[in-house]
């Protein structure tokens, strides 16, 4: 990643480094990235004739998508962060105009899970895909909220790519091993709640 980020503008490099660093640095970098190009929202309103709320959603999704790609290493630094973000933002705005009636979260969710499923063999993938499609997302979300603050926070940080060490620091668990055990217990608890629905 060092050789890739070194090609970037110093400001972009600092931001990507912050995102990759995790913890409080990641949070700050996320907010900085959002702030840096928040004027895209106005462009969404003017250029794509979107409502402010829709333009905000498109831009927020853009930033989140970019953060995801930077942290998972798929951002290849072929362009500046601004250009990269603008490409995503443009696509989001166009998508939004096309699919105004659809649920964006479910579209996003399916795509994201597909990424994970790619590592499975074709036959295993189709089995898992069928089961995932049967998931009751609303209930799952509701049960997640019932878990309690620490459990919920641990799972949110885990899903956001935080390491167990970072989770430990963030929630004040003694060690990364304790954070991992707690997190897995939280996930099992969630499963029990979900099955008991």
């Amino acid at each position, binding site marked *: 990643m060092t050789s890739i980020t070194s090609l970037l503008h110093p400001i972009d490099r600092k931001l990507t480094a912050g995102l990759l660093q995790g913890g409080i640095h990641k949070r700050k970098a996320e907010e900085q990235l959002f*702030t840096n190009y928040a004027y895209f*929202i106005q462009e969404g309103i003017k250029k794509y004739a979107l409502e402010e709320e829709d333009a905000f959603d498109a831009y*927020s999704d853009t930033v989140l998508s970019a953060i995801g790609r930077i942290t998972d290493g798929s951002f290849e630094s072929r362009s500046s962060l601004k250009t990269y973000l603008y490409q995503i933002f443009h696509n989001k705005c166009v998508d939004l105009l096309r699919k105004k009636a659809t649920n964006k979260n479910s579209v996003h969710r399916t795509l994201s*899970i597909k990424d994970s499923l790619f590592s499975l063999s074709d036959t295993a993938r189709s089995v898992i895909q069928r*089961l*995932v499609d049967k998931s009751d997302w609303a209930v*799952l979300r509701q049960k997640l909220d019932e878990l309690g603050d620490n459990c919920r926070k641990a799972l949110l940080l*885990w899903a956001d790519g935080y390491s167990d060490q970072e989770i430990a620091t963030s929630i004040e668990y003694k060690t990364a091993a304790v954070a991992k055990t707690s997190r897995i217990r939280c*996930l099992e608890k969630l*499963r029990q709640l979900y099955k008991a629905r």
Partner: protein
Amino acid sequence: MENGIGYIEEYFKREMSAGEIRQFEQLILEDPAFAEEVAFYLSARQVAQDEGEEEKKGRFREIYRQNPPARPLRTIRRSGWYIAAAVLAALILGWYLYQRPIAPGQLANRYIEQHWQTLGVSMSSKEDSIQTGLLLYNEGKWQEALRQFENIIRSGNPGPDLKKYAGIVALRLKDYDKALVYFSQLTNYKLYANPGLFYQAITLMERNRSGDPEYAKRLLQQVVQNDLEEKETALEWLKKL
């Protein structure tokens, strides 16, 4: 399966060997309960990720609400470029306008407007027929002023000033032939600073008949060569004509 989630996690973190991966995928096909556990793991992670992103969006919304987006730096830079481009265009246009030949009539007109809008009147309280002519000129009564100056000229012994004034008024009245006569007569006076030749050039430039500009140019060259009155103006005009 004991500690099933830890096992599933190892797979998606790519911490397994090739043999372990095959075993894991085979288990999905053979054990529906395990397959469900894998599907739950992925779904739970996705829901947690969605929730996390919603929270981030909430933070972003708060930032957006508290700090409305600033004007982007590049736009300011771009505006700077636009301003620079406009200044450059103005300079080029100015240079072009300065460099391009100017019509002789335009130069003459500008000089007349700048120098002969009014003519200097003596502060003396003494009644003077020349002063009367000048006052008439300054009041815009050019015909009467010319008549006044010509009466004095006819009465005999006119000085160079009278010829100059009569020539100027005739020029303002667009009686170019008469103006040329008076300025030509002015040129014949032996004066320390005689503008006669230069005034003839102005009259020719203003009249602008066939051959006038060329003749005016020759007169201006004479003004420069002989170091006469208004040499600097003549030099400037020669560059533009």
